[in-house]
């Protein structure tokens, strides 16, 4: 009997001893293949490679899980509720991470890692009360795309970044109009488009102030000035078509076929679409495009450009040693190696200091323009509103559409928006 008991105890100890290495999980979005590299599994391939190397180096097993964005399967909430949250998760910021960037859920990376390698402006977006809860992996940026051929035709030299004012843009608008070219896209279909909203930021408008996301700050004299400017562009005939009938899809279409002088967009839009428009026979030769800042009101220094990041968040646990290991894994997933593939093949911008590659998709002039802009003009903050984002946008869209149609004054539009949006934001 004693022998049996002894054997059982030894067997149990052996079983525990042989239960395998520590397993860490990484949850990421779906597999996206890089078309330029046939057979290679895109980001997923890079992440799996990094995970395998990490596991080998630290004697752990790293499992990569794929979230199906289309069906919403295996999202963080579902895994949290099941009691199996992923150790590290990677996704676009803003929509998914808002409520997790706090002490309760996320590892404060600055306690475990040297974060000086990252661009400070990007880290600041994810810093709450001095704690950095997310590491930026890829920055997708945009700027004010302008048609250089039209500029040359009217004999206008593009001012240096930060020197272009809204007043000057009006005088350029008149010159372009004389040639039959609308100066810009004002997008009001379904409401004042977020690309058009940059004309509000040009006057110093802000969506939120001081990181307070529980109430909007857009109801301000600066926004009123911005709205008046948008109206001036439309009334002077400097806007393309009827603003309530055009949106961002139209902006990309009509800008890339040379029908309008400028619009906010990403360099991915111009780099991808202009060759396509040539192929479709809509234009004979590619148009010459540069990216710059949206002109700003006199007295202001810059209009920020927009960018959103893919970020990596790590789940905080009781075990401090495990937290340190998980932080290292998160760091590996945003490393120079991972970012190299991203910038080289997918057109994403580096989030690291002093490292902007000039290879592959990163070699284009427009990529370099936008990369420079993000540093000089600054980035518009990304707001971690989660699902509330769509709700406040709906309010904004409906009311701004009424303003576009002249049914509401600018002040009434902003007052109503403030009242309704704050109800959602405070919830």
């Amino acid at each position, binding site marked *: 009997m004693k022998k049996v008991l002894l054997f059982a105890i030894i067997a149990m100890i052996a079983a525990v001893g042989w239960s395998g290495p520590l397993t860490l999980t990484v949850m990421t979005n779906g597999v996206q293949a890089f078309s330029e590299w046939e057979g290679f599994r895109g980001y997923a391939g890079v992440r799996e490679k990094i995970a395998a190397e990490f596991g080998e180096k630290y004697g752990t097993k790293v499992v990569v899980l794929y979230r199906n964005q289309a069906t919403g399967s295996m999202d963080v909430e*579902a895994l949290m509720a099941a009691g199996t949250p992923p150790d590290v998760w990677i996704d676009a910021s803003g929509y998914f991470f808002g409520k997790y960037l706090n002490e309760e859920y996320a590892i404060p990376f600055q306690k475990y890692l040297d974060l000086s390698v990252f661009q400070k402006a990007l880290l600041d977006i994810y810093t709450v009360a001095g704690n950095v809860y997310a590491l930026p992996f890829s920055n997708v940026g945009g700027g004010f795309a302008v048609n250089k051929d039209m500029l040359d035709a009217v004999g206008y030299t593009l001012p240096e970044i930060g020197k272009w004012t809204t007043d000057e843009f009006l005088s350029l608008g008149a010159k372009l109009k004389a040639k039959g070219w609308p100066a810009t896209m004002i997008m009001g279909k379904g409401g004042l488009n977020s690309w058009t909203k940059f004309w509000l930021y040009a006057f110093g408008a802000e969506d939120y102030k001081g990181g307070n996301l529980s109430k909007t700050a857009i109801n301000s004299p600066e926004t009123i000035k911005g709205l008046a400017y948008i109206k001036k562009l439309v009334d002077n005939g400097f806007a393309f078509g009827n603003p309530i009938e055009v949106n961002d899809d139209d902006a990309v279409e009509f800008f890339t076929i040379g029908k309008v002088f400028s619009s906010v967009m990403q360099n991915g839009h111009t780099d991808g679409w202009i060759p396509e428009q040539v192929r479709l026979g809509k234009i004979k030769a590619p148009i010459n495009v540069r990216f710059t800042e949206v002109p700003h009101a006199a007295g202001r220094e810059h209009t920020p450009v927009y960018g959103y990041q893919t970020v990596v968040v790590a789940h905080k646990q009781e075990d401090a040693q495990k937290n340190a290991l998980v932080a290292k894994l998160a760091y590996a997933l945003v490393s120079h190696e991972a970012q190299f593939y991203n910038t080289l093949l997918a057109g994403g911008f580096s989030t690291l200091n002093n490292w902007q590659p000039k290879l592959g998709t990163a070699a284009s002039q427009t990529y370099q323009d936008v990369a420079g802009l993000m540093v000089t003009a600054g980035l518009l903050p990304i707001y971690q509103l989660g699902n509330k984002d769509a709700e406040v946008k709906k309010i904004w869209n409906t009311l701004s559409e009424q303003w576009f149609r002249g049914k509401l004054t600018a002040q009434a539009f902003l007052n109503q928006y403030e009242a309704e949006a704050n109800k959602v934001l405070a919830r």
Partner: protein
Amino acid sequence: MKIRVALPLLAPALALWIVLFAAPMVMVGRLSLWNGNLVAHVNVGLRNYVEALRDSMFLKSFVNAGILVLLIVPARTIFSYRTASMLTGYGEGTRSIMRFVLYLPTLASGLIMGLIWRWILAKDGLLNGALAIAGIEAIPWLFEAWPARFSVAMVMLACGVGGDVIVFSMFMASIPVELKDQALVDGCTERQYRKRIMFPLMVPFILLVVLLSVSGTMQIWETIYVLAPEGGPEGSIATPVYEIFQTAFMFGRQGYAAAKGLMLVAVIALLLFTKKRLEKTMKL
């Protein structure tokens, strides 16, 4: 004893009813008391219902649906009733072909019809092209509130009439032939027969079709989603179901959407009750 016999016979249908209707309804009821979704949630009692009653967009969606009902239901009912009534004068072969042709658009999903109509109603689309030939200025079908409402009404008429014609034809066919023969022998004209005999017999069915059309109009969403995302100009064509869809799947508030859904069920139940009362008052 009767229950003992009836229950085994009813069991398969009852089981399906419980699994596919009763249980989901109970779950929706529970969900409507939560803030969140089925996985992660906090119990908030009746707060979702109170919020829905103060939700201007949700309330506006009923106004939108009311306008769409006025634009769609009378036209749809009159047209389909008249068509079905007209078809009774033809032989079975012609009737079948006509019914098939009219029913054809109903077979396509709302999404497909929405896509086709978006192309027809586009600013440089087929309809404006035809108007231009006639020298009429282009109409912003999907960019102004009233044209957008008329556009939805047009699409729903094109898609829904066929089904109603089939239903009316079926009910008309159920009227005993002897009644008509008798009326004609008594000196009734065809017109008098339709007006004085067939129509009163059809009233309960007309009420049924009207009820189904009204409830169907409140539930249009995929056509709107395709025709004019964001619920059309200034949200003018967003119906209650479109609002519920947005709340659940775009704003991620499944609990709140469930409360809105149950409120819609209550409105439809009220319509059903009104129909029943009406039938009673009219002694149908």
